[in-house]
């Protein structure tokens, strides 16, 4: 599945400290175009931090992260431009509370991509249609269920036509019956060849959609393997321990 060209996202010797806490330890990870990488690990293992460093919502202490061959710039116009190419879906949805569903999806295209309102509306409605919430376009985020909000958040990211999408525990805040509607949309994206980094506890999604599973513990990447291989023959004791805990219930 690996493509031998230049990786789309490349993390080299990345270190992150929060004061005394060593959140990321010498992280090296290349993600190819069209690749779906699922990051799993116990809580506090640094998987969310890793995901958030890719669009520099978290800064790193040392090391290098490149996207499409370009080093992540410091805060400013160049970083804003780069972020517009990197979609992000959050655990807590983070839809703009004072804007309608439609406005949530059109804000980026209008302000960053400089689309006209009518073009942006048209594109947004098509995306909302695709994630199945077009009929809610004029409502406000709080009027939607969690699953619907998260699908809108995915549409909001897609509206920027990103090169890569980051999912930071996208189903962890959802009621169980709403998890699948979000995972279905994500699987659809994976099938279409979207490059994705997904931090999740959903092993079913990892098996179905991932090309590689990255297992993290205590800030380190402990194991990287294809999903079947990882779930059936984990190599490290920490991965075995983690899997035994989550797969028994």
């Amino acid at each position, binding site marked *: 599945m690996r493509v031998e060209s230049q990786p789309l996202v490349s993390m080299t010797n990345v270190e992150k400290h929060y004061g005394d806490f060593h959140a990321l330890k010498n992280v090296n990870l290349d993600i190819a175009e069209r690749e779906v990488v699922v990051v799993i690990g116990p809580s506090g293992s640094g998987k969310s931090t890793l995901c958030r460093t890719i669009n520099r919502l978290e800064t790193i202490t040392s090391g290098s992260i490149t996207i499409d061959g370009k080093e992540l710039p410091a805060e400013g116009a160049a970083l804003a431009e780069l972020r517009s190419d990197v979609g992000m879906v959050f655990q807590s949805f983070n839809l703009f509370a004072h804007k309608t569903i439609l406005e949530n999806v059109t804000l980026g295209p209008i302000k960053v991509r400089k689309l006209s309102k009518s073009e942006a509306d048209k594109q947004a409605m098509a995306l909302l249609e695709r994630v199945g919430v077009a009929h809610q376009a004029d409502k406000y985020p*709080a009027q939607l269920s969690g699953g619907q909000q998260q699908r809108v958040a995915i549409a909001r990211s897609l509206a920027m036509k990103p090169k890569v999408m980051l999912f930071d525990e996208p189903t962890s805040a959802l009621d169980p019956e709403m998890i699948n509607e979000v995972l279905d949309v994500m699987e659809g994206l994976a099938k279409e060849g979207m490059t994705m980094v997904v931090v999740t506890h959903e092993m079913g999604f990892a098996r179905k959609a991932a090309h590689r599973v990255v297992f993290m513990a205590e800030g380190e990447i402990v194991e990287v393997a294809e999903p079947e291989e990882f779930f059936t023959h984990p190599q490290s004791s920490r991965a075995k321990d983690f899997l035994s805990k989550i797969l028994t219930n």
Partner: protein
Amino acid sequence: MDFLELLQMFLSGTWGTIKLFTVALVGSLVLGTVLAAMRVSPTPVLRIAASTYINVVRNTPLTLVMFFCAFGLPFLDIRFGSTSSFNSFVYATIALIAYTACFVAETLKSGIATIPVGQAEAARAVGLSFGQTLNEVVLPQAFRTVIPPLGSVIIAMLKNTSIASAFNNRELISAMRNAIEVRGDLVIPLLFGTAVAYLILALLLGRVFDYLERKLVILR
């Protein structure tokens, strides 16, 4: 001087108060927003400049701020028009704006602090710049959350316009003083009449803020 003439005097005084208030309202909201944005900006110089300004001006009595504007600005030869009454009006509004903007900024800043971090993160993740994030996502929500305390700040400013009467401005208090000069026998009714005029204006303002609060509430 009969009742009709007195009433006319009060009406023109009320109009003077409304003019002062309206210009100062717009100006202090604009300056207050700029100060609040500076206080949360990533640039240390802007943050320090804004907090220094707020700390100094907010802790100076408004009367003294008025003195600075009404006597200090003409001394520096800063004038805005040919008539002294227009200049007095501008000096008084500058003082009101300079002073009230501090309270607007502090109120807004407390509102900004209540907006979940995820809102700004999502805006930045979409590619919005710092300024766009503030303008499109953070400030509109901050304004909506601080409407009730902002109402108190604005009502206080309405009453503070009365200080301008001591600096050659025609408004409610100066109208009352003139009226008392000619009809000293009516001093008690005139005092009450003035109080009622302020009360009516402040209550109307309160209604406007109640309406905005209901209309602009954010569901979370």
